[in-house]
């Protein structure tokens, strides 16, 4: 952000008109998205309160077709940076969870419930519904494909 600030300071001295237009556009966007950020904050808090690692691990213990649904749900509901989840996924892998389920989990992490208000604001309800369903569908396709392409003992090849 500091680089962008420096750029703005430079533009302020070089081209006042460009600076004015850019700042004007910036505030137009900010005013539009502030209420959405408040909603995002509330949803993030709810997710942090109820969706814990213990809940996610429980989902992975299910069996059969039911497991796909739970893995999709776990991916969608999981929060926090992705790198925090890698150790847990590696542990689940060691315990026999196949790579396909891990891939489906990771793909569904792309669907962020707390960020839905922002997506709705920019792209509309119809688009968000279609994209979400497409992503869930392709997460399962990817999971099945990876189950075929990545043998369970491939981790040993690293």
């Amino acid at each position, binding site marked *: *952000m500091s680089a962008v600030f420096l750029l703005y300071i430079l533009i302020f001295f070089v081209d006042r008109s460009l600076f004015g237009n850019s700042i004007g*556009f910036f505030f137009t*966007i900010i005013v539009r998205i502030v209420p959405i950020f408040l909603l995002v904050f509330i949803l993030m808090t709810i997710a942090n309160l109820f969706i814990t690692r213990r809940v996610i691990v429980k989902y992975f213990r299910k069996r059969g077709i039911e497991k796909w649904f739970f893995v999709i749900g776990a991916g969608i509901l999981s929060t926090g940076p992705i790198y925090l989840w890698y150790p847990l996924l590696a542990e689940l892998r060691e315990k026999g969870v196949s*790579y396909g389920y891990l891939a489906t989990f990771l793909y569904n992490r792309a669907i962020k419930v707390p960020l839905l208000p922002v997506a709705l*604001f920019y792209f509309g309800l119809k688009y968000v519904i*279609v994209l979400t369903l*497409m992503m869930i569908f392709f997460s399962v396709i990817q999971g099945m494909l990876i189950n075929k392409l990545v043998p369970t003992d491939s*981790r040993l090849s*690293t």
Partner: protein
Amino acid sequence: MRPELKTDRTSLNDDFAGRMTRAVVKSARAMSRLLPIIIGAILLVSLINSLIPKSFYLQFFRRNMLFDSLIGSVIGSISAGSPLTSYVLGGEFLKNGVSISAVTAFLVAWVTVGMVQLPVELMTLGRRFAIVRNLTAFIFAIVVGIMTMLILHIV
């Protein structure tokens, strides 16, 4: 009996209050980490919007679904950061005339292809898994972009 029940309830309330406080603090920390990035991205988008005419973006996109989605997926794959930033950027791309298939591929690749975290993924989950997962995610971003556009035309 009653005082014990009361103690149990108080303890449950205290536990929930503690969890609530931790959840609020965690969200506040996440937002405080995100906000400078979002503000920086919006400042940059605002500058680009004022500086570059809409026709500039369109020259990269040939109104060909496959090519546009490919470009969107490439840009999304090499970008990093919160999905919130990708929504803001994607929304502005759309306003500037970039096709929905390209924007969708961009959004999907941003969150499913992890070039920045690839080394960690390689180390923790294995080389073959990480490469196959990211490669298929890149291809699927293009497919999702095209299919989303087609479905939106139909429904």
